[in-house]
C-alpha cells in the first residue's frame, strides 16, 4: 500500500500573482487543495490609527491609498461619512460629479480586474494590456479633473475640489463612444476562449449561503446569484435617479464573476450617460468648499457605505467633538471578500488557487490597511 501524506506549500508572500504581498499556506494532497490559510498583514501601515491622529480633512488623501485602483470611490465613502457626521449638505452638481467619477472608477477597476484575472490564468500581459487600455484614457480624465491619476484626492466635505475643467465633458463623450466597442471587444477576446472556459467554469464555486454567511459583497456576491447592490438597496448620493440593472451570476464560479464584471461595466456606462444628461440641469451652489479645513462634528457616530467596485465599502466614524476622529474604522470589501478564500479553494487544484484569488479582485492596500 502506497503511503501518501499531505504537504504544506507556501504561495507568496512574494509571488507574482498574489496581488501584493499576501501569503497562502496551502495544504495539498497531491494536486488537490485540502486546506488553505490566508496570511496577510504584510502591507499593514496603521491606517486607522494614523487617521485618528489626523484631522478629518487630512485623512482624505490617506483614503486614496486604501484601494489604490479606486481612489475616487474611497474618497466618496469617506466624504459621505464625515458629511453624515457633521451634517454637511452637498450641492446637486457635486453629487453628479461624484457619481460620474465613481462610475468611471468602476469601469477602470473591472477592466483591469478582468485583465489581472486572465493574467493569473497564465495569459501573461497581452490580455492585461487590453484591460488596461481604456483605463489609461479614464485616468487621463481623472488627471484633468483632480490633478492626479491614481491618488486623486478629489472629494471634499460638501463637494469636490474644483468643478470639471471645460475639456472634460467633450473628452468623456468621446470616450463613451468608444466604450461599447471596447467592452464588446474585451468580451469577444476572452469570453469564448476555450482555455479560459476550462480554467473558469465550475472553478471556485461560492454557494450563496456561504457567501452570505461570510458577509461577502460586490461582484463576488452577485456572481453567486444574490442581487445585492448598495446603490439599489440603500440609494445614496443621487443613485435613485438613474436606471440601471443589477447583473447576477447563476453558479457562483470564476466565470460568473467575470461575466458580472463585464456586464457591470455596461451598466456603469449607462449611468454615466444619464449623468451627462442630467448634469447641466443640476444647480451648483458652491461645489468646491475651500473653507472646510477644520471640520468639527458634534459628538456622535456615523456609518456611510457605498458600492465600491470591489464591494460594500464603509467608513465608521466616532466623533468626540474635536477636529480629529475618535474612532475611524474601514469596512474594506477586499478584506471581507478574501475571508471565504479557503472555502472557495477547497477541493480544487493548486493551479486554480491563483485564478480564484484573481476572480475575487483584491487589493492588498485595502486588505491590510
Amino acid at each position, binding site marked *: 500500500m502506497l503511503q501518501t501524506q499531505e504537504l504544506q506549500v507556501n504561495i507568496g508572500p512574494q509571488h507574482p500573482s498574489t496581488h501584493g504581498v499576501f501569503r497562502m499556506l496551502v495544504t495539498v494532497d497531491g494536486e488537490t487543495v485540502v486546506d488553505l490559510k490566508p496570511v496577510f498583514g504584510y502591507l499593514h501601515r496603521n491606517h486607522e490609527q494614523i487617521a485618528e491622529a489626523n484631522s478629518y480633512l487630512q485623512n482624505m488623501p490617506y483614503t486614496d491609498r486604501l484601494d489604490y485602483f479606486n481612489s475616487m470611490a474611497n474618497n466618496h465613502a469617506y466624504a459621505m461619512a464625515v458629511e453624515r457626521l457633521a451634517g454637511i449638505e452637498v450641492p446637486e452638481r457635486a453629487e453628479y460629479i461624484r457619481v460620474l467619477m465613481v462610475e468611471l472608477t468602476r469601469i477602470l477597476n473591472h477592466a483591469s480586474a478582468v485583465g489581472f484575472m486572465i493574467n493569473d490564468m497564465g495569459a501573461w500581459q497581452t490580455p492585461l494590456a487590453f484591460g488596461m487600455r481604456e483605463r489609461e484614457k479614464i485616468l487621463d480624465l481623472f488627471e484633468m479633473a483632480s490633478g492626479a491619476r491614481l*491618488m486623486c484626492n478629489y472629494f471634499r466635505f460638501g463637494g469636490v475640489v474644483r468643478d470639471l475643467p471645460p475639456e472634460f465633458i467633450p473628452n468623456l463623450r468621446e470616450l463613451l463612444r468608444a466604450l461599447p466597442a471596447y467592452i464588446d471587444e474585451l468580451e469577444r477576446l476572452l469570453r469564448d*476562449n476555450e482555455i479560459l472556459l476550462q480554467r473558469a467554469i465550475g472553478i471556485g464555486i461560492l454557494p450563496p449561503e456561504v457567501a452570505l454567511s461570510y458577509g461577502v459583497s460586490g461582484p463576488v456576491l452577485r456572481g453567486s446569484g444574490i*442581487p445585492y447592490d448598495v446603490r*439599489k438597496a440603500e440609494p445614496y448620493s443621487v443613485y435613485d435617479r438613474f436606471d440601471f440593472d443589477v447583473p447576477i451570476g447563476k453558479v457562483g464560479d470564476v466565470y460568473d464573476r467575470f461575466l458580472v464584471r463585464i456586464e457591470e461595466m455596461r451598466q456603469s456606462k449607462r449611468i454615466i450617460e444619464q449623468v451627462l444628461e442630467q448634469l447641466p440641469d443640476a444647480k451648483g451652489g458652491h461645489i468646491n468648499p475651500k473653507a472646510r479645513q477644520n471640520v468639527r462634528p458634534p459628538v456622535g457616530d456615523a456609518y456611510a457605505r457605498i458600492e465600491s467596485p470591489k464591494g460594500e465599502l464603509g467608513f465608521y466614524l466616532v466623533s468626540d467633538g474635536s477636529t480629529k476622529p475618535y474612532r475611524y474604522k474601514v469596512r474594506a470589501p477586499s478584506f471581507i471578500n478574501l475571508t471565504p478564500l479557503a472555502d472557495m479553494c477547497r477541493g480544487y487544484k493548486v493551479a486554480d488557487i491563483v485564478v480564484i484569488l484573481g476572480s475575487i479582485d483584491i487589493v492588498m492596500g485595502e486588505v491590510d490597511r
Partner: protein
Amino acid sequence: MTASPFEIEIPRGRVIEVQRDDTRVRWGGGLLRGMAVVWKHWKESFKLNRSYSQIHGTFTIEYPEEQPRIPEAYRNMPILLYDDETGHELCTSCFQCERICPPQVIHMTQAKDPATGKPVPAVAEFIIEYDACMSCGFCAEVCPFDAIKMDHEFELSTDDHTRLTVHKEQLLRPISYYAKIAPTMWAEVRESALKKLQGNVRRRPDVIGLAPQLTEKIAARRAELAAQAVQAAQAAAAAPAAPAAAPAEGRKLTPEEKAAKLAAIRAAKTAQAGESATPAEAAPAPPSPAPAGEAAPSADKAAKLAAIRAANAAKKAAAGEAPATLPVAPADGMAGDTPADAPPAAPPADKAARLAAIRAANAAKKQQSGDGS
C-alpha cells in the same frame, strides 16, 4: 435573462442573470475569435490614434522623446512663488500649509525685522521634504496668499537623497512660471494674490521676503542707482548752495525733492570730510561716486543694511506722508517672461531713489542735532 431566483423587485432597473452559454461546443472557435481581436490590434498598432473615441491604433506616448501633455490641474510637488518684477515672495509664513500637511513635511520659520526683532509677514526659512510629500495639494489649496502652488515638474529622480529636502532657494519660482504652466488657474487668483502681496510688502522691512535669486541683483542695482543719485546731486549742489539749510518740518516732499535735498546735504557733508558719520553710510556715500557703482560685497551688504534702516527711518521722517506704496507694475517695458535674466530695473530704481531720499533726511537730522558722532 431569466428571472432571478430571489424575485427581488428593485427600483429603476432589473435583476438580470448573465448568459453563460457554457454548453456550446466550440472546437477552438473561441480561441480563433480572440486571436482575430489580437491580430486586428496588431495591424492597427502601426497607426497613431490619439482620439478618445477610437479603440484602435496607438495612443501611447514615446516618453523621453515626446513630453506628455500635462493638464493644468496636475499636481506633483509644491513650489513657492515670488513676484518677477520686485522679487517679493508671496509667502507670509502664516503656517496654514504646515498645519494642514498630512505627512507633516513642511517646515518654516517666520522672518524677523533685524532692527526691532519683531516678526514680519515674510518667511525666513522654508523646507519641504520632497521625499515624504504625498502630493495631495492641500498646501496649495489652503494657502490664503496663493504663495504655494503645485509644480508640474515630475523628473525629480536623484541619487542624492539629501537633495530631496528642498529649501526655500530651490522652491522659489517666479509667478510667470506658474502662469505659464497653469494659465487659467493663475488668472482666477491673480488679482487677489497680487493685492495681498502689496499689503504684506508694506509691512515688511525692505529686503526681507525677497527671493534670494534676486537679492544680489537688486542690491547691486540699488547701489548703482544710489551712486547715480549722488553723482547727479553733487552736480546739482555745485550750483545752488542754499538748500542745505534745514530739513523740512512736516512738509510733504516728493521723492524727487527729497532726493535732491539729500544729495545736496550729502555733498555738503562730504565736503566737510564727513566720512565719520556712520560706518554703514560710509560706503554708499564716497567722495567720488565711481567706486559705489562696482557692487563690492561690503557695499552690497551695506546697501542692504542701509535699506532696512532707511525703511524704518522713512516711517519716522515722513510721518505725515501717505505710506509709500511699493510699485508692482513695471515702469518701463520690462517683460515678465524672463525675470531671472532681466535686471529688476524699474521698481528698485524707484525704491533706491526713495531710499536715498530717506537716508538724506536722516543725515540731515543727525547734522542738525549736533555734529556729534
